[in-house]
């Protein structure tokens, strides 16, 4: 996926983003740091690291980064716990802290768990460095980033459930949103989706954000049913 590197987001040196890395494996933190931490080239500045939930909350509160790369499995309660304790930081109006989940696990319960916890995106650890940088910038701007697999889960969650009539409008995905998700699931980059559907990248982003919002607010029984079908609860 080399073409995403020249989208003008990751490559731009004039853009800066402050990032905190949360992962319990030092090796992995070092690796990510080496991959994205060359601030002159990528524009990413790693301002802090943490290895467990308590450390993470402390570091995030003191450094106030723009984006947190959050591992899902952490000692002390996992990424969801970090999200819960940083809820006020996420909500702050002037400089919100945004979370991008970065995990080796692509099990459905992990993915949906952190998204519902308030993370703005989810990528797996197999992602390339340039894609990761790109994702970080997207999240910083408030957009949502889905991996193909996550898009698959969301499609699955909303698909084929006969809609409860009451709050249909609130929770159903629009045709367009489904199309976008489908293309993400097929491995398209945002730019390629835009080209395919003859819309702008900005529109793609807003569709994805809408999906994310619906996923967080989605009515309970639909998701419960979805989770039950997969024996997650």
């Amino acid at each position, binding site marked *: 996926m*080399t073409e995403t590197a020249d989208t003008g987001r990751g490559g731009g040196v004039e853009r800066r983003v402050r990032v905190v890395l949360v992962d319990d494996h030092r090796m992995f933190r070092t690796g990510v740091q080496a991959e994205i931490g060359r601030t002159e080239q990528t524009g990413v500045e790693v301002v802090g690291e943490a290895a467990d939930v308590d450390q993470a909350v402390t570091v995030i509160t003191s450094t106030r980064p723009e984006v947190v790369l959050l591992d899902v499995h952490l000692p002390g309660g996992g990424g969801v716990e970090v999200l819960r304790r940083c809820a006020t930081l996420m909500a702050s109006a002037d400089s919100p802290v945004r979370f991008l989940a970065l995990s080796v696990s692509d099990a459905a319960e992990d993915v949906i768990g952190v998204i519902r916890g308030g993370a703005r995106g989810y990528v797996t650890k197999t992602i390339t460095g340039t894609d990761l940088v790109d994702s970080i910038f997207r999240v910083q701007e408030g957009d949502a980033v889905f991996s193909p697999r996550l898009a698959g889960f969301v499609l699955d969650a909303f*698909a084929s459930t006969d809609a409860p009539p009451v709050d249909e409008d609130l929770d159903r995905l629009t045709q367009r949103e489904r199309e976008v998700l489908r293309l993400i699931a*097929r491995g398209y980059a945002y730019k390629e989706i835009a080209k395919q559907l003859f819309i702008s990248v900005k529109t793609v982003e807003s569709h994805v954000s809408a999906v994310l919002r619906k996923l967080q607010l989605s009515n309970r029984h639909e998701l419960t049913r979805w989770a039950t079908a997969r024996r997650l609860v």
Partner: protein
Amino acid sequence: MPVASSRPPAAPRAPVPEDVPLRKLYRSAEGRLLGGVARGLAGHLGLPVIWVRLAFLGLFLIQGVGALLYAVFWIVVPLGVGGRTAEPRSVFEITGDGRRKLRKPDRGQLFAMLVLVFGAAIFIGSIETTSSRYVWPTLLIGAGVVLVWRQADNARRARWAEAEGRGRRLFQMVRGLAGVALVGMGLAGFMVVRGSAAQLGNVLTAAIAVVAGIGLLAGPWLVRMTQDLSEERTMRIRAQERAEVAAHVHDSVLHTLTLIQRRADDPGEVRRLARAQERELRNWLYRPEGTGKEESDEPDTLADAVKKAAAEVEDKHGVPLEVVVVGDCPLDEKLAAQMQAAREAMVNAAKYGGEGGAVQVFAEVDGRMVYVSVRDRGPGFDLDSVPGDRMGVRESIIGRMQRNGGSARLRPAPGGGTEVELEMERAAET
């Protein structure tokens, strides 16, 4: 077992020679009236069960020796599945056309019941004159004990069978309580008969005091012992689990790591090994509860089929394939053809477009349609430029889909590379 169960349980039969070497006496859990002693014995001796029952009944008439003997057998002989015949447990049976109907009571059992009733009547009649005052309490106690013992048997059996509904458990509790109540009533009856009813209060107080004393003395010790036991069991289970994990890690991960070290100079091979190992480990870790270690070879749902095909292609060609499956459905004939086409598309993508990055495979079940897309980021592919005698794509993908009533499209993907889209309608469910 299924052959034997079609036989009426009391039918006389020649001794079976097949289990001669290892024949141990068990009480039968199947088709028993009380404790399964008679049936177990019958199975052991190779006699019709009705003979054994009659023998017990006859002995019973001699001062109740039969009852005593039966009780001793009940206590000493362990419950087993070893009875000779298995009897359908439900009072209903399924007829040939699938309806439930009341099962005809078989004659042997009816006869046994009748004999039992007669025997009991004779027995009671014979002692009516002598010491009738003790008979009813004794019978009550006996009935209570029988109830509770059967209960214990059932509890043990439940551990084999495992599946016990909640209602069932409640019923068992009620049964146990009823047994206790019967015994209590019998004991109280004795006291009344012996004319010591006046001292009932005193006796009760003393009894309660003794029981409480024993409880105080032995209680903590009992509690500690059960705790120790369960703790020990947990530890053992944990140790077993750890051993299993260790064995698995050793079998797969360590071997792969060794291979990787040996092949360190061949990045493609290292990547292939690592991917294959990752997938295998992931399957093992996240496998659904209750599935065994070995998966069955032929997948029977769409999702499994797609994943399996992708895994095989990945192993063979050393190109990562990212699979996303939305929805699932059983695999029918048309879908199997689609899977073969998809597999072919994956092979093509891996062979010719694999250097551009991971191949994306997406499968979706949307209502009656099943949709598969395979996308690579290679140099692209133009069907018209392929010479007419090369039938790979035309025949094995497009042709195969059309023959089975589906459609296939090849087109350049927007970001470079090729996308193959396969559409097929599911066979109508009958």
